[in-house]
């Protein structure tokens, strides 16, 4: 029986009300941490849990926390609530329906790295959710769970909300920091990394909402309990956002290591109209189009296994294509997405995504030629490995895999 760590709102009605959350052991872990745990021990505990970042990179969370130097102060924690990857809608559910567990996680992370100020960066479209959060933070402050000298200790913590303004690039951690500082949301040069030079130039931890929501479980129920789910190298559960040509799209919290087959056919109840599945995109628009072979379907969804199919697990926004989907039409969408969202700082992404958008439009309009497919592949290759940040690099993944695996779809759209 798989455990639910995160979408506990589905088990406990009204969990997004403060008193309901309190009635369900809410913030007991927080009080325990501030009054009796040592920050260094907490960092080690998270390392031992094997928790990996749930925003897409899968970087070991405890290791990231340990990079903060204890010689430079203050430290900051920033929650990345800029969920903008197409096909990803897991954080939204947490923020709307299990917000206090997320907040408790953010607070635990702050205590663990001794930050006295934490920020939640919401994508601009979440303005209503952010407004609600301001109310929730006020509730916590009134209840003595946030503010000065918590529980009679030396430790104080304030949480602030901040809204973005409609830019996918602000989910990239250094662009997020720039935006949070009031500047243009463009990524910074790395090194230095945010752990050493982050918000306002200070050591900063940036974690995804889902990642933080795991922390009350780890500290409240213990590492063995957390590790009871998932695999050795990818422990814990993951919320899989299933969408596309399936009967039941939605968020599904399952142990890491669950197969694609189980997600798509058991939970997603199979393909619409009984059609034949064609491809899987496990990481939203930044995915490769993985041909849905039997072997692929039986691949476990974890950070080690999925890359063997030629794509990272990413944020686990699993998009399903069937035989009615033309891959080149899909690529048209992803290319336009990246061209629209490119920040414009570096040449390959700014010019390359624009160029690709012109080519895919030509193909989609029926005026394309066979050479345009080769040109598209070539331009994608030209962008690769030259960009300042991951957005440019990911903009080509769907293009290259679609041409490689589903070239016939492109051929169908061009003049023969």
């Amino acid at each position, binding site marked *: 029986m798989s455990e639910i760590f995160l979408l506990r709102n589905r088990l406990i009605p009204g969990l997004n009300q403060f008193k309901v959350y309190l009635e369900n052991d809410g913030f007991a872990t927080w009080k325990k941490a501030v009054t009796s745990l040592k920050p260094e021990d907490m960092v080690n505990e998270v390392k031992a849990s094997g928790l990996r970042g749930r925003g897409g990179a899968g970087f070991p969370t405890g290791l990231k926390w340990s990079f903060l130097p204890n010689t430079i102060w203050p430290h900051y924690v920033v929650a990345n609530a800029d969920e903008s990857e197409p096909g990803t809608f897991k954080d939204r559910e947490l923020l709307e329906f299990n917000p206090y567990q997320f907040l408790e996680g953010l607070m635990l992370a702050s205590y663990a790295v001794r930050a006295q100020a934490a920020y939640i960066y919401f994508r601009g479209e979440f303005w209503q959710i952010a407004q609600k959060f301001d109310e929730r933070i006020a509730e916590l402050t009134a209840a003595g769970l946030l503010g000065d000298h918590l529980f009679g200790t030396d430790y104080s913590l304030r949480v602030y909300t901040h809204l973005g303004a409609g830019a996918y690039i602000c989910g990239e951690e250094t662009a997020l920091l720039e935006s949070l500082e009031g500047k243009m949301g463009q990524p910074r040069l790395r090194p230095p990394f945010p752990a050493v030079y982050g918000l306002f130039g200070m050591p900063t931890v940036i974690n995804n909402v889902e990642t933080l929501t795991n922390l009350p479980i780890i500290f409240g129920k213990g590492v063995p309990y957390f590790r009871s789910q998932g695999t050795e190298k990818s422990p814990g559960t993951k919320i899989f956002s299933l969408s596309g040509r399936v009967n039941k799209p939605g968020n599904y919290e399952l142990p890491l290591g669950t197969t694609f087959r189980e997600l798509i056919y058991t939970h997603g109840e199979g393909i619409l109209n009984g059609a034949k599945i064609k491809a899987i995109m496990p990481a939203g628009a930044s995915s490769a189009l993985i041909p849905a072979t039997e072997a692929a379907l039986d691949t476990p969804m974890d950070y080690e296994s999925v890359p063997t199919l030629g794509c990272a697990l990413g944020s686990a926004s699993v998009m399903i294509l069937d035989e009615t989907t033309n891959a080149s039409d899909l690529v048209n969408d992803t290319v336009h997405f990246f061209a629209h969202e490119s*920040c414009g700082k*570096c*040449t390959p992404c700014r010019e390359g995504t624009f160029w690709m958008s012109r080519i895919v439009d030509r193909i989609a309009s029926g005026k394309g030629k066979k050479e345009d497919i080769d040109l598209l592949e070539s331009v994608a290759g*030209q962008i690769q*490995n030259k*960009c300042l940040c991951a957005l440019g690099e990911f903009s080509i993944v769907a293009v290259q895999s679609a041409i490689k695996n589903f070239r016939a779809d492109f051929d169908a759209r061009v003049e023969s």
Partner: protein
Amino acid sequence: MDKLVTLKIDGRSVTVPAGTMIVDAAKELGIVIPVFCYHPKLKPAGMCRVCLVDVGRPQMDRATGAPVLNEDGTPKIAFGPKLETACTTPVSEGMVVWGATEKVMEARKDVLEMLLTSHPLDCPVCDKGGECPLQNLTMKFGPGESRFKFDEKKHLAKRVPLGELILLDRERCIQCGRCVRFQEQLADDPVIGFYNRGRSIQITTFSTPGFDSIFSGNTTDICPVGALTTSDFRFGARAWEMKEKPSICTQCPVGCNIMYNIRREAKSSGRMVIKRVMPRQNEEVNEIWICDKGRFTYHYAESPERLTSPLIRRDGELVQVGWEEAVSYAADKVKAAGSSLAVIASGRLSNEDLFTLKTFSNRINGKAILHTTISGGDWVSRCGLTPGSNLGELGGNDTILVFASDLHEEAPLWWLRVKTAAERGACLIVVNPRKTRLDKYACHTLRYVYGEEGKALQEITSSSGEIASAVKEAENLVIFYGSEGLGLAQSAYVAESLAGVLQSGGRVGKPNNGLVAVWQKGNDQGAWELGFRTDEKLQETISAAMGVYIAGADPASEDPQLKIALQRAGFVIVQDLFLTETAKLADVVLPARAVMEREGTAVNGERRLQHYLPAIPAPVGTRADHEITSAIAQAAGLDLLEISVESIFERMTAEPGVFEGITLMQLGEVKEQRPSIGRNWKYYGGTSYDNHHGLGLVLPLNTEVPLLTAKKAVPVTEVIAGRLLAVPVTRLYDRGGTVTASDMLKERISSGVVSLHPEDAGKLGANTGDRVVLKFAERELECGLELNPDQPSGVALVVRSMGAMLAAPAEVAVVVKTAAKDS
């Protein structure tokens, strides 16, 4: 001592200080890695990606920390999976960089192809053609043809005024960010920025007037394409059609090294004309920058108002005559005056003009007077900067004191150099009665009341206090004093006191220690070095003399008392470029040549002697100032016949004194300027010119000037209740002849001539834009009003050279004449 690092680039070894970027280490070897967004004077951005190179580092064993070795014992080099930007990657020990492999060349070709997909095919009409790194790099590294469909190019606005001085072509812009970063990091005027994102990203301006920065022209130099152009030069000429004529800017005492670009034109009737002014690199003076005043105010030379014929007053009117007649008439007057002749010159003249005038004045036992706004040049001559001094070297242990000067208005490149010194760690002390643009960089700011300079000086020289210790304990101390609220008497007192600080600290004569005066003109310091002196009682001197001989000065425009004295003078001989207020009172007016029309030397405020050559031929009928003086002297029976600048210079440097033994050859010496910038087409630093024409040299101190004994304080001007203290201040864009002749700058000249604190204005019921009457003791004047919350109350700041003619602090009543809303 910086730690050194050795690495290999393209198989060749180089050792550079730690922290050097790969792209600069490569330059040391003469290997060129192309750049667009990188500029050695800006922080690296890593945006354009054209500098991608293959970087390998010695592999280290994770467990032991020891280097992993190959079979042959050499360190194993691990190359990254991706190319790295050479401009953002600092060197490390044992690094191996490949900049010329096929992989790197392919990457460069790819990036260039991508840049050209949006870039328009404007080369045939683009100003930058011929001095454009995009052209050059495309020829060297780019593809021959583009695979982008021409019809699908994004079309953007091609003539976007970022203000009236700088125009942007959005299609040409390659979004390198140099302009934005220059404005933010160096000019401290973040008035332009990026707007929108992705392919729609564009440069926009946030200020009114647009691109409100006195350094805006520099962005057109460092722009790697023809996106930013000046409205002055745009579509003016092709780069290869122009010739280069090196010169010095004489608009302020910095003495920026410039290059005039000239071309012979049909529309100018076959005349050689100046098309634009560009900076010339001199890291010890102006680096690679010039301010907009220097860039755009050359138009006065071609003004139709230029005097081209001598004039003599007959029956009350000035009529045109020939040179012989005018010279002979002037000579007769001079002979008749004997020793009762006052010779008045300004810092607009070259050393040769001044030397000739001084020699002339000596011969007739007359008085050689410098007409200028502030005094104290003898102290600068004695305690000024010495050879080996360079503002660009000041840093952590040094102190810079700026007294009574708004450098941003008075000497923009010194503002920039002092600010960057402060950013390098120098302790900046700003002593001023009001807030200026330097305050935010200062360690200490000291405010004093206009007229009470003595109190501020006391604090600097006292035995205790942070400012006094910062001054005493500095490794090197450079002191600037300017013209903020000071007249001749006050500034002489200030200069003496500040010179005393340097003397008592034992600093006189040490490099990077000294007194610098922020003069109004380019060669005031030269005048002092050559023996000219200011005269606090000039009005009496003029009245007492039989006649006045004025060269390049316009006292009647600057001081009403002097205007009256000149009206009553026995006779007045004037040599100038225009029919100034002073010339209108003259008996003889002789047309002179502008600085770009003749050769000469000048001494800047840092006491650097610099040589300039003519750029364009002078208008027919004009003569150089020294030629005029020589001719008059000759006609008056004085033997003074040197005509060539070279021979005058030889005479000048034969005499004992600070100029002794200097040759023009020495002034023409150059040495490698670092960082190398100008026009190296592959590593592009901007269109500023390399300096092949001379860096000049700093004069030794004048030990003939006796050291300070006693200082006399200047009595504070009494102000009756209800009235204000009016003080003169300097502004960069005033109504002087050179600025007003450049029509393009008219929006930048403020209409307000006097500024008041809002509190004082409120009491008078006055608002910005009102016409007010300034009622002084002996005169009244109507002018425009501005409000300034950053100035103290009780004071009316009167801008010089705007017609208000205030030379020294004076009491004034201000009354509203016409409200702005009613006009």
